[in-house]
């Protein structure tokens, strides 16, 4: 089979086929008294898909991009897939976090029933996200987007016998569906202007147009993806949905699903709307720092450890959106006078933003999985009760500290580098007061958030254990393994940021190739 199927389709087919086959494997597993067979099957599917994505990445690195169209029904009307450096970067991230979450879920979810559906939905969600990263026309993107979103809605409410997931899931469903429909409504206007949904053809027509009505469409698309990315006026679903979901799914939602929203925003904004005509960068910067500030203030009020991490996810989305804003603003303001400066600032900012996407996916996945370990062992998410639990669970505690330090931006760890890149890009044109003010707010917020990360770390690691947690033990090996892996990725990428930064840099350049032409 693998000989005749194009390489670009293989990861998608493997993931979707896995999603369909998991219930069957479960039936077989129950027959032969191997209850865990489906779990290991799902892990194997993720590993295989990740390997295929890696081979695809090698081909992309050699050729620039790989494209697939249906013969006889190709562009401009037919469906198309294209993998460039950005898609490759994002899809490997999605699938990698999915693999670790699947390993984690083997023990974490063992008290639940209906796990065949859980793994099928997890595989479908990752397949949807990989498809979103691969899609090269809006219809394909929308189909994969809804696959991802519907699986996500069901997974948030997986423990539907409790009230919290039902409320949070309903809220998530209404807001996220509204966002995706708003996005597609905006796309319908673009369709009316271009007569196609294929990215290449749309970009050809749209990039040369200076039409003030397009601001409305930009608003719709940015807001639509912004709901999933949890940009501030649309963030309210996130702090409810993340704590209510099972911890593995929290890690998926926070680590990668909101990144799919960021990917959609980056891709559509920087492919179709020429910053020379539309100054959306200024607005994106304002929304970015608004996201940062609001989420930072809200995070201080939390007692629930997963809710605090959820607000910290919104904070990190703030950095990523600000990075996009800085890039677009630099291109708008300075491209006419000095194209080299503007382009290098934009690439710098976007590479920093994409590097932060990676770091936050790793770091926040780590934190949610750690909080899941605490929840599994101590049965509570309350920070006042969890005090000192790090002494009883040394592996989880140390990994949690590494994750917190990485997201706080402490120098030898990975979060430091990406924040540094975003800040340096913001300060690279010192005579521009607007960019400097935005960056100053960003720096203040970074320091502020570092303070409460350290506060959480002090409570978990340094205080003497409370009565409730004095009896807990370390989590099982298969739950500690993904956590330790993620923590070591934080340390290794922090020590050697070169390779990932190189990937992010190539991804940023391929993203900007439509606007600035190679």
């Amino acid at each position, binding site marked *: 089979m693998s000989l005749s199927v194009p390489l670009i389709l293989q990861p998608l087919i493997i993931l979707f086929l896995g999603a369909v086959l998991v219930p069957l494997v479960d039936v077989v597993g129950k027959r032969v008294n191997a209850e865990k067979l489906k779990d290991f099957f799902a892990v194997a599917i993720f590993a295989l898909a990740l390997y295929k994505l890696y081979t695809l990445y090698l081909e992309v690195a050699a050729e620039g991009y790989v494209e697939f169209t249906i013969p006889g029904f190709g562009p401009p009307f037919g469906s198309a897939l294209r993998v460039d450096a950005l898609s490759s970067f994002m899809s490997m991230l999605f699938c990698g976090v999915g693999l670790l979450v699947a390993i984690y879920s083997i023990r974490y979810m063992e008290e639940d029933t209906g796990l065949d559906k859980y793994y099928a939905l997890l595989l479908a969600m990752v397949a949807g996200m990989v498809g979103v990263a691969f899609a090269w026309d809006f219809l394909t993107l929308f189909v994969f987007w*809804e696959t991802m979103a519907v699986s996500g809605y069901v997974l948030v409410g997986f423990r539907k016998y409790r009230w919290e997931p*039902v409320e949070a899931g309903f809220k998530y469903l209404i807001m996220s*569906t*509204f966002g995706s*429909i708003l996005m*597609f*409504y905006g796309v319908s206007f673009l*369709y009316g202007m271009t007569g196609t949904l294929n990215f290449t053809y749309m970009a050809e027509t749209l990039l040369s147009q200076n039409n003030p009505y397009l601001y409305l469409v930009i608003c719709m698309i940015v807001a639509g993806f912004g709901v999933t990315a949890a940009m501030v006026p649309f963030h309210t679903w996130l702090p409810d949905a993340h704590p209510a979901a099972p911890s593995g799914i929290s890690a998926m939602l926070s680590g990668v699903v909101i990144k799919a929203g960021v990917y959609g925003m980056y891709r559509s904004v920087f492919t179709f709307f020429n910053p020379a005509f539309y100054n959306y960068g200024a607005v994106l910067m304002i929304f970015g720092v608004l996201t940062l500030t609001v989420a930072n203030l809200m995070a201080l009020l939390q007692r629930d450890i997963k809710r605090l991490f959820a607000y910290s996810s919104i904070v990190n989305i703030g950095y990523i959106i600000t990075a996009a804003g800085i890039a677009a603003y630099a291109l708008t303001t300075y491209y006419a006078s000095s194209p080299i400066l503007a382009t290098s600032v934009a690439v710098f900012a976007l590479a920093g933003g994409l590097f932060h996407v990676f770091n936050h996916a790793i770091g926040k996945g780590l934190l949610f999985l750690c909080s899941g370990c605490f929840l599994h062992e101590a049965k509570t998410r309350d920070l006042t009760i969890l005090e000192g639990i790090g002494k009883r669970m040394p592996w989880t505690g140390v990994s949690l500290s590494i994750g917190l330090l990485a997201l706080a931006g402490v120098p030898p760890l990975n979060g430091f580098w990406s924040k540094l890149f975003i800040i340096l890009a913001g300060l690279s044109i010192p005579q521009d007061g607007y960019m400097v003010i935005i960056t100053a707010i960003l720096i203040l917020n970074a320091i502020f958030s570092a303070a409460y990360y350290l506060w959480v770390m002090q409570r978990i690691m340094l205080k003497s254990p409370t009565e409730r947690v004095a009896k807990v033990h370390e989590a099982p090996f298969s739950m500690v393994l993904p956590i330790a892996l993620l923590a070591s990725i934080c340390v290794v990428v922090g020590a050697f940021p070169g390779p990932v930064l190189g990937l992010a840099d190539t991804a940023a350049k391929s993203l900007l190739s439509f606007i600035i032409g190679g």
Partner: protein
Amino acid sequence: MALHPGWYITTSIILFAIGVYCLAVKRNMIKIVIGLEIITSAMHLNFIAMGYALSLVAFNPLTQVIVVISTGLGACVATVALMYVINAYRHYGSLDARRLRRLRW
């Protein structure tokens, strides 16, 4: 005699506004789901209208493909939404969305 496509686009925008109003104001969970469906219909109508405006015949295959596929996806979303409504009803014995307010801050 065919209508100008602008009429359809205007209707779609009005429908969208009605749907947003429905989402924002209605307290009954089923009515909120209906609001979502109204917005989806507005989006579909806009696609059809745009296809009509492009080709000036009421038949544009691409838009119809888009709308048929999107209708299928909308059905999935509606199913999951109604699943949540049923579960909420089992928990609270009511369809009033104001009761779903324990998750604040």
